[in-house]
């Protein structure tokens, strides 16, 4: 009797958990299923759950008849460049904030953290004016610069918390053996901070890949448009909304974040945990 009730309850709670997990992921499953249905099947009443006939036509149309591939390439360039910049600048900056002593260091660290909470819409007007002035509006470079500065504060904070866990003695030992400060940083600190760098890279890439507002304001030409605004443009400019194709675009657009997530999600969970628990 006493053993039966917990077992029954455990099974019920497990079932409840999975029902909620599946409900949460249902919209994304529906996106995938819709993208594989031919356009005519979308109008079946009531809707079919699994596609009656699987069709890759939406994907082919997307890849060969629309500017989607160019948007995709733009987003890849944009997110990769931003990630490289943020990791490079963030790693040396975090090292400086952690292991060097100079006046104003702590104040600087707090100030950097404060910028992370700044609403990005507050900067939209002057940034637009600035990019127009220096001739970077409508170029990918404007977005790379903007996203770098948005991702940098959190990246610094994250890298600092990972680097703080590396024993100071390791660097000291390398110095005794004759390594310069920079040498010790490259040979000792960087390899140890690799999980933190992975988490930072993932976070930055996703931020640059997913942003809509800045892409909307700073870029208004198809040659430099990233995926987010590009796909929305396709959505609002077509007279008959082709939902299969839009869902196919959504699926393709989700693949890079999902790949990165699969590789790095342990670090990412740790880092969000770090933001919530440690900092």
């Amino acid at each position: 009797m006493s053993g039966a009730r917990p077992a029954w309850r455990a099974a019920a709670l497990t079932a409840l958990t999975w029902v909620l997990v599946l409900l949460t992921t249902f919209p994304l499953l529906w996106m995938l299923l819709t993208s594989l249905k031919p356009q005519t099947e979308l109008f079946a009443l009531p809707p079919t759950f699994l596609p009656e006939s699987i069709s890759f036509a939406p994907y082919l149309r997307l890849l060969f008849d629309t500017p989607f591939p160019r948007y995709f390439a733009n987003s890849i360039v944009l997110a990769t460049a931003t990630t490289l910049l943020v990791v490079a600048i963030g790693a040396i900056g975090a090292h400086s904030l952690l292991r060097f002593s100079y006046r104003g260091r702590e104040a600087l660290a707090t100030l950097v953290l404060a910028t992370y909470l700044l609403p990005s819409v507050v900067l939209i007007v002057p940034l637009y004016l600035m990019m127009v002035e220096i001739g970077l509006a409508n170029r990918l470079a404007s977005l790379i610069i903007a996203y770098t500065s948005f991702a940098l504060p959190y990246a610094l904070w994250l890298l600092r918390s990972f680097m703080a866990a590396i024993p100071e003695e390791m660097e000291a030992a390398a110095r005794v053996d004759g390594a310069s400060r920079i040498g010790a940083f490259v040979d000792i600190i960087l390899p140890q901070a690799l999980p933190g760098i992975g988490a930072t890279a993932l976070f930055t890439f996703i931020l640059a890949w997913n942003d809509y507002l800045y892409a909307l304001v700073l870029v208004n030409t198809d040659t430099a448009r990233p995926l987010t605004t590009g796909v929305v443009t396709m959505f609002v400019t077509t007279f008959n909304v082709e939902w299969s194709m839009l869902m196919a675009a959504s699926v393709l657009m989700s693949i890079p974040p999902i790949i990165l997530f699969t590789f790095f999600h342990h670090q990412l969970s740790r880092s969000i945990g770090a933001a919530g628990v440690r900092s």
Partner: protein
Amino acid sequence: MAALLRLRPATSPQALARRDALLGLLLIAPTVLILSAVIAYPLATTAYLSLHNVYTPTLATEWAGLSNYRAILSGGTFWHALATTLVWTIGTLALQLLFGVAMALLLNRNIRLRALARSLVLFPYFLATVVAVLVWRWLLNGLFGVVDHALIALGLIDTPVDWLGTMPNAMATTIVIGAWKFFPFVVIAVLARLQTVPAHLYEAARLDGAGSWARFTDITLPHLSGVLGLVALLRMIWDFREFDLIYLLTGGGPLDHTRTLPLVVYQQAFGLNQMGMAAAYAVLMMLLVLAMTIPYLARARGRR
């Protein structure tokens, strides 16, 4: 000569320390440079612009003093948008916390395929808002949307619901979709904290005859209070400033019933071509966010 050299080493400790500090400053210089150029300078420009009338297409600028602020604070738009922003923020935040904590507690138990369940739940958070909005618009489509059909099949409604075109539906729908998109952040943070609660506390409470609810209120909740406070604060600030989701989902409509402050800033600058007004709205919004940020910074400082 040799004695002198021994007395005065080539590099004194002070000189070394100074060189060290210089290298430290050199390493932080790129950060300072880019944050000054892309955040500090634009911030100052926002404050400057808010005191001017600026016509977007020509960028013609004239001094306006505090008239932008006067117009904003005496007009109805700001207060309406502020109320809308608060309804959205509080509504979606409450759902995120509730669902996030419940899901974290469920996922902290030993269930089948726990690692898979934990990964799946995080998906909405990592996918682009554009993707989330397109998918939900399709799910809620008036003619062929699967949500309406499911609800009709269950007998809950008779005819399709206008989810985004009328009030209060539009606000409720936006709040729920926002909760769906952002609750995984709460799950991650709470799960990370739950794993550090010592298991022997639960064992001891169980031996003392505490039921599951008592164990939750006496052990779990006190351990979570710290992380929950921080997560709530962060999410509150992020929800308050959210643009992408609301703009893409409703565009602020119907009429201006879901037009939150960030949307007003955008509309003023690029819809109404009033950059000075937009800047003044932005300054007011920033002051509100600043007020929310102070406890967070105080706390971050306290923990270091």
